[in-house]
């Protein structure tokens, strides 16, 4: 009997992982050795495995190779995974923080003023459901720069959850707390800083966490379109190279980076959490 629930969960996770990897490995067709083939078969590509998803062993070998030298740069089409991730993170974070810089103040405004809420709500409702990639052609035409367009697409997709959650959090601050500010004659800025921001912070952080998740989903697609650099471009480029091992490897990397981003924001959310 294992002591803690966490330890038992970890064990079960590891067992599941081992079973899945084992099944995957077993399902992959074995490659014949080159020596067993005739010259004709080799010329005809008989040495290649049948078109199939590479086995985990191949993916691990690839991962080891890539991760042992993540920052090499051998020309435009051959960069290390670290560099590609770096480009993607740069675009995601710059678009994201640009969005935060606008969404949070505007969310405050909407949350504090019913007039502004009613006036801006139709715009938000129309703009919010638009797929961020639908903006891409317009962004490319107006901005005329594929890098900046990718950042714009991240900006436009991450602004809505932050805007709506900030407005919601600010509008929902308990009246008692606002009255505390009023009876202590706090000015508008001090009220926002001492009472409303801390009171709404957990809701705002939730919006920020949703946004960073969406931004990371969208960057892969955006980079497939704009090309050049980034993890999205890397996936598509390896598909064009028919290097499925790299494709599987990069899919895993996208998942891990996304998880790390989410964990970081979950940690920040815990810092501003309060108990009533």
């Amino acid at each position, binding site marked *: 009997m294992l002591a803690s629930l966490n330890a038992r969960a970890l064990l079960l996770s590891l067992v599941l992982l081992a079973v899945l990897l084992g099944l995957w490995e077993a399902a992959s067709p074995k490659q014949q050795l080159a020596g067993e083939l005739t010259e004709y078969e080799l010329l005809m590509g008989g040495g290649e495995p049948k078109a199939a998803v590479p086995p985990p062993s191949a993916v691990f070998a690839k991962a080891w190779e890539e991760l042992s030298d993540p920052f090499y740069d051998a020309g435009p089409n051959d960069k290390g995974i670290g560099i590609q991730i770096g480009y993607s993170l740069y675009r995601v974070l710059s678009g994201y923080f640009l969005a935060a810089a606008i969404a949070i103040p505007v969310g405050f405004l909407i949350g504090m003023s019913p007039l502004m809420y009613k006036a801006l709500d139709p715009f938000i409702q129309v703009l919010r459901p638009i797929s961020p990639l639908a903006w891409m052609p317009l962004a490319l035409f107006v901005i005329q720069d594929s890098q900046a367009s990718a950042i714009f697409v991240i900006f436009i997709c991450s602004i809505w959850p932050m805007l709506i959650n900030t407005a919601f959090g600010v509008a929902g601050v308990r009246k*008692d*707390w606002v*009255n*505390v500010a*009023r*009876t*202590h*004659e*706090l000015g508008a800025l*001090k009220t926002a800083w*001492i*009472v409303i921001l*801390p*009171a709404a*912070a957990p809701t705002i952080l939730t919006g920020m966490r949703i946004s960073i998740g969406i931004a990371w989903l969208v960057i892969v697609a955006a980079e497939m379109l704009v090309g050049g650099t980034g993890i999205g471009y890397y996936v598509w480029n390896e598909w064009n190279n028919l290097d499925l091992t790299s494709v599987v490897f990069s899919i895993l990397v996208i998942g891990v980076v996304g998880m790390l981003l989410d964990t970081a924001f979950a940690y920040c959310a815990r810092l*501003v959490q*309060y*108990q*009533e």
Partner: protein
Amino acid sequence: MSTPFLSVQNLSKRFKAPKGEDALTVFENVNLGIEKGEFVCIIGHSGCGKSTILNILAGLDEPSEGGVIMNGKEVSGPSLDRGIVFQNYSLLPWLSALKNVTFAVQARHKSWSKKQVHEHSMKYLEMVGLAGGAELRKPSQLSGGMRQRVSIARAFAIQPELLLLDEPFGALDALTRGSIQDELIRIWSGSDQTVFMITHDVDEAILLADRILLMTNGPYARVAESVQVEIPRPRERANIIHHSDYYDIRNHLVEFLATRSKALAGKQEDGGTSEPSIVRFGAHGVLSDPKDDRKPAVSRAK
């Protein structure tokens, strides 16, 4: 007649009713005065508008008619001159007990240094028995009684001209309530604080108040009587019950709440000047005739 420190004049509150119907009048023609340093309790059934009166005194609510004058100035909007303790404590849950007090002290004394603010805040927290580390806890880590102590410390620390208490002990158990009542009376005696307090607890009102205002039931509620509590201070819960006036006052209050608050309820035809009638108790029992609330009380003892 000189104007009292706080004067409430012809105060009414009406709520707009859904289309067509008459406006709902919670209370009307409420007149009362409070002298500096006086401790006044107000008692009445729920719905009679006690809390609305308190909120209007605080400047958090607006009267439909009438006005409040404090210290020669009309009350409009909330101010640091009027401190409030709410039943639900109203502490900011993300700040420690100490920070909940310091931000208020800082707001009151903008020119003070951090050290001055800290010392002043600690003085009041110690007065209510929060020291030695407890002041660094968040409200969620404190018991209900402790939270209300912080709230009281905050209200006294800003030294308002008028302290408003909205059923401050309503959510506390009887034992905790008793000990905080003692603390409240101790802190209050050491100050010249004017207090206006809402309570549902008759014994609490007699223990704390110089004067108890009795409200009739709403709608059209009004302050019908003003009962003088002349039991000498310092009062203690243990021996106040042996004072000869105690049960006379208590019976009077209970009887008012049980029957007369209903009997006197309803719209006053003559409107006009409805000053509460004054009721005093001396060694010989009740001096005014409580049945005839329109007749001003005559003191026989003096």
